[in-house]
Every structure is written in structure tokens, then in C-alpha cells.
């Protein structure tokens, strides 16, 4: 084995603890794996490293935990701290910026793509609900629900992003609602709650009831 190879093995040997712990980069891990595959002596030493790893975890896990007083002490100290400046706590913009700044550009790009996809999917399935409703409209008597988009009592609703098409369909059916129009800006839908106009108090009661449903993230009355 020449000097260059010896140095390479030494470098790889130094990385064995991190390889065992799984904290190496993909390229370093591959380099270590390749060397281990061709060097039985290093593979034997790697077994020793794995032994140390296991026993270090065992040792630390038997150290116990602090008592429940620890958190009491902490919050007693926090209570004694001067009040926070509102500039830090109430600056929503800064908090949002700080939140997004914590992600890597790649994560942010994936998250942005996923958000766009979610919005498109939601718009798609709600459009599907609307088309389905239109198709099922058959023979109607004079007292049947009006299809005139301008007649009735309405609310503006934004559905939860995680709500499925099935959830929304069930929600609309259970509450005898129909989508009049949308999606509008902000992902809002105009939803008919009654085929005739309703007194404000009655509409407010309906809104309050609908607001409690997990499918709804925002609801307000509208003309």
C-alpha cells in the first residue's frame, strides 16, 4: 500500500463514527462504503465503532431525566423577565419572513409548488362539484330551488386546504348548500344557504353553525 492509500484510509477511518451514526453526507458515506467493501481490517474496526455507538447510547439513556421542578424553575425565571417589546412579538411580517427564511431555497420552491398544486386541485374539485350539481338538475316544480345565481341568501366560504372533494360534497349536502360562484380572490366561494332571502339574525345563526365545521376556514355573510 503506498503512502497516498494509507492517508486515504486514515481519512476514511476518521469518518467511521459519523458513518455509523448516519450523519455523513451522501458522497462521504459512499466513499466510506466503498473503502469498507475492499478493506477487511477497516471493516473490523467499523464493527468496533458500532459497538461504541451502541454503548454510548445505552450509557446516556441510563442517565435518567431531570425532575418536574426543572420546568417550574424555568417558568418562574421567565415570569421574572421583563415583558417582551411588542415590536418583536406583534410584527407579523417579520415573523412570517423569519419563518420562510428558515427554509432552504429548495424547500421553499417545493413548498411553493405544492401550494400552487393544492390550490389548483381544490379549484378543480369544487368546479367538479358545481358541474355535478348542474347535471343532476332535472324536472323542477315552481317551488324547487332556484338556479338563478342572484336569488337567495348567501355566504362567502373558504374551505380548509386539507378538505377533500368528498368532505366538501358531504358538507354541502348535509347543510343543504350549493355553490353559486367561485373560486374568487383568496379562494372564496359564494355559497347559497337558502333559496329565499333570510332575516339577518337567522343568517347569522346559520353562519355560526357552519363556521364550526372543520371543512370551513372562513365564512361571512354576503349579498
Amino acid at each position, binding site marked *: 500500500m503506498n503512502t497516498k492509500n494509507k492517508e486515504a484510509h486514515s481519512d476514511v477511518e*476518521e469518518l467511521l463514527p459519523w458513518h455509523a451514526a448516519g450523519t455523513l453526507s451522501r458522497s462521504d458515506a459512499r466513499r466510506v462504503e466503498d473503502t469498507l467493501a475492499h478493506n477487511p481490517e477497516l471493516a473490523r474496526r467499523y464493527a468496533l465503532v458500532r*459497538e*461504541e455507538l451502541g454503548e454510548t447510547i445505552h450509557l*446516556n439513556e441510563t*442517565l435518567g431525566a*431531570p425532575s418536574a421542578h426543572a420546568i417550574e*424553575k*424555568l417558568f418562574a425565571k421567565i415570569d421574572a423577565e421583563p415583558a417582551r417589546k411588542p415590536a418583536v412579538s406583534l410584527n407579523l411580517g417579520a415573523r412570517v419572513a*423569519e419563518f420562510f427564511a428558515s427554509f432552504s431555497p429548495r424547500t421553499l420552491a417545493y413548498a411553493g409548488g405544492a401550494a400552487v398544486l393544492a390550490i389548483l386541485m381544490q379549484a378543480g374539485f369544487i368546479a367538479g362539484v358545481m358541474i355535478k350539481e348542474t347535471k343532476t338538475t332535472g324536472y323542477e316544480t315552481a317551488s324547487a330551488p332556484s338556479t338563478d345565481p342572484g336569488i337567495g341568501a348567501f355566504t362567502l366560504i373558504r374551505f380548509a386546504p386539507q378538505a377533500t372533494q368528498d368532505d366538501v360534497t358531504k358538507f354541502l349536502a348535509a347543510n343543504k348548500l350549493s355553490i353559486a360562484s367561485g373560486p374568487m380572490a383568496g379562494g372564496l366561494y359564494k355559497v347559497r344557504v337558502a333559496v329565499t332571502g333570510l332575516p339577518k339574525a337567522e343568517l347569522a345563526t346559520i353562519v355560526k353553525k357552519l363556521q364550526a365545521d372543520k371543512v370551513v376556514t372562513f365564512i361571512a355573510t354576503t349579498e
Partner: protein
Amino acid sequence: MQTTSDEVLIVRIAGGDRLAMQVLFARHHVRVYRFVLRLVRNEATAEDLISDVFLDIWRQAGKFEGRSQVSTWMLSIARFKALSVLRKRPEEELDEETAERIEDHADDPETTLAKKDKGAALRQCLSALSAEHREIIDLVYYHEKSVEEAAEIVGIPEATVKTRMFYARKKLSELLKEQGIDRGWP
């Protein structure tokens, strides 16, 4: 199930959210306690220290820039606090600690049993390492810190982290050899 990331919790803590502080504490206090305990070797001191560590997090959350993992930042604070305590500790206590370490090597019945149980012997030798070596071994094996993260916590270059770990392991093997267990390395 998706959990709130540590980074989001820190943003909330910076805004004075006590619940976020409780969540962060619940998530990390045991590991921070164990890291500190292995350095100061006194349970009461370690317990006092963790409330100080988390109080610092409460105070400095607004300054956290997210350049490293929250757990790495926490261990850096914990290490600084533990070393400050060790510097103030009276010499008698340090002598006692040394004596304990010497006792660890004594060939008492426990040690004899440990010789039969390689795992127990290994754990005993891990405890007998110097604070510097214990620290690097714990950071890499137990706290799962990368070379870069360990370097940040300890405040040394990455190359030094690798060599320190190598020598800590070498010392461990030597201690095991003293206990009659030859690992064939170094």
C-alpha cells in the same frame, strides 16, 4: 403526524409564546440535561443548568438566525454554561471527581463482573474518559451531530473534531485494554 419544527417554535418564542417554550422544552430538555450531566457530573447542578439554558433560549430566540439546527444552538449554550460552572467549581470537588475516576479502574467485584460483560466494561471506560473526550463521543454518537455541527458546538475546526474523536476512541481502547479487553486496535 407532522410536528411543528424547532425553527417555527423559536420564531414563536421570540414573540413571547410560552406554549412554544413548553413544547421546545419537552422536546429537548432530557437530551440537554444528559449532555450537561456528562460534563458536570452532578445531577442537581445539571438540573439547575438546564433551566438557565432554556432561559437563554427564551431571551435570545429573536436573535437566532437559523444558520444551524436549533438543537446545535442549544447544545452550544449548554456547553458554555457547563464549562462556566466547572471553572467556578472548588478544587476539592474536582479532586473527588478524580478520585471517582481512579476508583473506576479499581479491580473491585463490579469491575471483575464488567470484565465478563464487554458492554458494561465499555460503558465504564466511556465514563472514565476525560471531559473533552466524553464530550466529543457523546456529541457524535448520542446527539448525532455531524462534523460541522460538532465543530460549531465545541468551537474548534472540523479537522480537529475528526482527530479529537479519533484520539478519544483510541483512549477508550487503551482503557479497555487496562481492563483486560484487547480489541486489537490501535
